[in-house]
């Protein structure tokens, strides 16, 4: 142990005496570790962001849609569409899904006093606002009565308001949607950018009946039925119930597959979690390559250093250093270099995350495990890539080493 401490001191002096070279050697590791930390942190930050947006989507959300399969580059409907019959049946029979709303989406052109704009109109029931947790900040929204009578009313998003109505409160005014005039009955509370970067305020919401009857004629089927389960604990129950009821209504025999799909919020989180997780893994793996390159850099410099210091090694052996002393010295040099590089890299990575936060406002919490990975990796790199040069140094023949020019 005492010998180890003495050798440690020797190794440290050697690094200190070659400060510039040591720093340059460690640079590969510094950048590698910083890259690992920043990519893993960014990946985890994005995952958290997506997850929190999904959980903000709605309370205990379920989405029921027709089963589709990907065929020849197109999504093909595999069963009969989800339609009014299904909706009425669920409304009548469901115990676990107190709120239900169909969703009919269409791309439209909206025209207001300030101009016109391509946007999307969503046809829904009045439950929609509760299911998706969307608040109306001005106006009263529409009622069940409006839905029943298919009145030409709509709720608009903040983006539509800004672009088509300037600053005045447009509630009560008219908006033309694909040439049909609608009365504005509410403004949605601003939501900002969504998970995939889409603008969640660039939308119009109207009774589904109005869209089906007045805008496009009677179209069969909905894009989906949205529902919210009674509570978080009953999402599973709601899913089972919906499956049973729909199988019955669709007359699907036992053993046959469903012709519809039910996606719950939990499943959505799992899927996006998987996607972002894989993304993080890939980015981290790419960043780790730079760490390996850094390690090779250390090995390279250490090999040069061994050759350059051949005579020093010979002298040390001649005055009584054991092979193990030389091995330890060079191994410690490599490990200290990569470890110091690792620590500097961790600091650089944290700093990088801060700079990204300050400049783009995208908050990246520095992932604790990325710090541990960066730290562990740099030690490992030091040992693995330091061993070969150290062994080469230790195995030098003292006589040849002393003569080396």
């Amino acid at each position: 142990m005492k010998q180890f401490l003495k050798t440690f001191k020797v190794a440290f002096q050697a690094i200190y005496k070659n400060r510039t070279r040591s720093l340059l050697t460690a640079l590969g590791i510094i950048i590698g570790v910083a890259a690992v930390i920043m990519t893993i942190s960014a990946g985890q930050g994005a995952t958290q962001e997506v997850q929190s947006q999904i959980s903000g989507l709605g309370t205990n959300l379920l989405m029921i849609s027709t089963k589709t399969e990907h065929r020849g580059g197109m999504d093909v409907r595999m069963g009969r569409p989800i339609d009014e019959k299904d909706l009425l049946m669920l409304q009548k029979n469901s115990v676990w899904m107190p709120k239900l709303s169909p969703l009919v989406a269409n791309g439209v052109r909206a025209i207001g006093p300030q101009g016109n704009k391509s946007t999307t109109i969503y046809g829904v029931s009045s439950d929609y606002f509760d299911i998706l947790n969307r608040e109306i900040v001005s106006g009263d929204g529409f009622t069940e009565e409006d839905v029943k009578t298919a009145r030409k009313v709509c709720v608009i998003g903040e983006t539509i308001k800004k672009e088509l109505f300037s600053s005045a409160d447009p509630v009560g005014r008219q908006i033309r949607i694909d040439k049909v005039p609608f009365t504005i009955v509410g403004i949605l509370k601003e939501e900002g950018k969504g998970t995939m970067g889409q603008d969640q305020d660039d939308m119009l919401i109207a009774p589904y009946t109005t869209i089906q009857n007045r805008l496009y004629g009677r179209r069969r089927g909905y894009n989906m039925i949205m529902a919210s389960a009674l509570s978080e604990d009953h999402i599973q129950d709601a899913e089972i119930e919906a499956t049973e009821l729909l199988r019955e209504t669709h007359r699907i025999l036992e053993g046959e597959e469903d012709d519809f799909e039910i996606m719950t919020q939990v499943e959505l989180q799992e899927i996006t979690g998987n996607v972002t997780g894989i993304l993080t893994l890939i980015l981290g793996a790419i960043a780790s390559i730079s760490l390996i390159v850094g390690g090779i850099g250390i090995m390279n410099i250490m090999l040069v250093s061994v050759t350059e210091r051949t005579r020093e090694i010979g002298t040390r052996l001649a005055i009584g250093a054991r092979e193990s002393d030389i091995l330890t010295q060079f191994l410690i040099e490599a490990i200290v270099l990569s470890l110091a590089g690792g620590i500097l890299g961790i600091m650089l990575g944290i700093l990088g995350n801060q700079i990204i936060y300050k400049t783009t406002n995208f908050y990246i919490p520095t992932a604790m495990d990325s710090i541990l990975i960066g730290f562990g990796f740099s030690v490992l790199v030091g040992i693995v890539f330091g061993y070969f040069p150290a062994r080469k140094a230790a195995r030098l023949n003292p006589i040849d080493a002393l003569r080396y020019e």
Partner: protein
Amino acid sequence: MPLKKVIETRKLNRVFKNGDIEVHALTEIDLVIEEGEFVAIMGSSGSGKSTLLHILGCLDKPSSGEYYLDGVHVNKLNKNQLADIRNQKIGFIFQSYNLLSRTTALENVELPLVYDRTGRFTNSKELAKKALEQVGLEDRIYHKTNELSGGQQQRVAIARALINDPALILSDEATGNLDSRTSIDIADLFVRLNNEGKTILMITHEPEIAQFAKRMIYLRDGRVLTDELIKNRSTKESALKALELIT
């Protein structure tokens, strides 16, 4: 009381094999060097003096024959034991000093104690300072290697060879890189250290330096050609005088 034998070799042979060709670098060397001796080994290049120094310095092993260093049978030692015995019993001095660059004289002199496993030295700094005093460098203790002249660097190297209180000081062409005047200073330093009781064995091909020793061994083709005491030993004064006569 008979003097202690620092070196004793019996029928020492060293054969290098290069493919099918065998080169006999040393043949049947019988050598005894007692405590307090100052021996110069001379010979042309290829005479085997370096090989002999390497074996005596425990850096190499003989092909056959026996070697006792300060009573230890060296043949039987393994690599680590050889390293330890070099550390404990031998002080090496090299032609090109072999000091650590950008390192102070003091740290250079301390170096052998880094590898001391006996724990017999407690204050390496004090010992290093004392060794530097012995070679007359007490005012250069904290100078770095590159701030010293060649002669001063070799003195640092000598101090490094002294610090572990070795049974034997081995000098391999210590004056080979120095000018005549400085060479004489170094040779004179060897004489003084020898007078203080150190056993010194030096290899040299400069007859005027060898003249400082008490005994001269002449090697040729791996055998001892002559082995005799020196009658007219040089002193610093006589050597300097001889130098002036030439120039």
